[in-house]
């Protein structure tokens, strides 16, 4: 599994690859062509370029190309929770799936967050995203102590 894959911190030069992977997945999995360049630019500013003390943005490089990425951070007292790790994006290029890329990314971010003093990792996934939900479960995640509620207004 993933012998030639290198996991490293994202750099400014990776932004285009991240945008492309996200766009490819949006089209392939959800048929969406929404332009999210500005969103990823902001995320890069916050997670890659600024102080990264409690933030992690990792990319998986396979044969010199970015094959996937994962983003998260350690935060305390959000929703009343003591310090915990939040993983809010993990994406693997459709052509690189089932090679263990996501697993390597998740393992590395878990370790980084653990070193920040985190003992619990959380995420939130849309109920219809079964592939992503299955991935997180395969990594050992289960329904947690927080329940997401919503209403139309």
């Amino acid at each position, binding site marked *: 599994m993933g012998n030639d894959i290198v996991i490293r911190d994202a750099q400014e030069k990776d932004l285009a690859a991240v945008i492309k992977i996200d766009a490819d997945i949006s089209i392939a999995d959800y048929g969406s062509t929404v332009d999210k360049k500005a969103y990823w630019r902001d995320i890069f500013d916050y997670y890659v370029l600024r102080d990264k003390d409690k933030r992690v943005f990792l990319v998986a490089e396979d044969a010199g190309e970015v094959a996937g990425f994962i983003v998260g951070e350690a935060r305390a007292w959000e929703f009343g929770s003591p310090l915990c790790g939040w993983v809010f994006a993990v994406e693997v290029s459709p052509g690189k799936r089932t090679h263990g890329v996501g697993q390597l990314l998740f393992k590395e971010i878990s370790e980084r967050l653990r070193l920040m003093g985190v003992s619990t990792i959380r995420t939130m996934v849309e*109920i219809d995203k079964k592939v992503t939900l299955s991935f997180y479960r*395969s990594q*050992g995640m289960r*329904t947690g102590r927080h329940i997401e509620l919503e209403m139309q207004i």
Partner: protein
Amino acid sequence: MKLNKASLFALIAVLELASDPKQQKSTTDIADKYGVSTHHLAKIMRNLVHNGLVQAVRGVGGGYTFSGNAKRTTLLDVVLMFETLESVLDIPNDCITDGRPLVAELQAITNEIDNLTKVVLETITLETACKSAMQRSMASAASARGDRE
């Protein structure tokens, strides 16, 4: 949520076989290990064979082997072979004229619960369940060793 016996026995049998796909096990092997009815399990095994999840091995020492795709098959796939997981409110028809909004609200709540149940079962593959069970087994063994030391 309470799974019916057929779903539960089917999950046990499929996970037991999927945890070691090369090994064949008889209905009696599985029934004895989990304390379930051999007769009931035999009927379930026929259903699982029909659905392609297990294969019958004939002859002396025959039994069943796992023949599905553990990475693609979810717990919900197995459960839906035996039940629908749709909660039904058992309310007599002649009572609901004035109580329709309340009954509709109760039905909406049970639907919400059903949907959550289905999502959980649908996002756990047989492979993931087997892996988690193996980790439990290893943790339990490590704990037992720790107790002895």
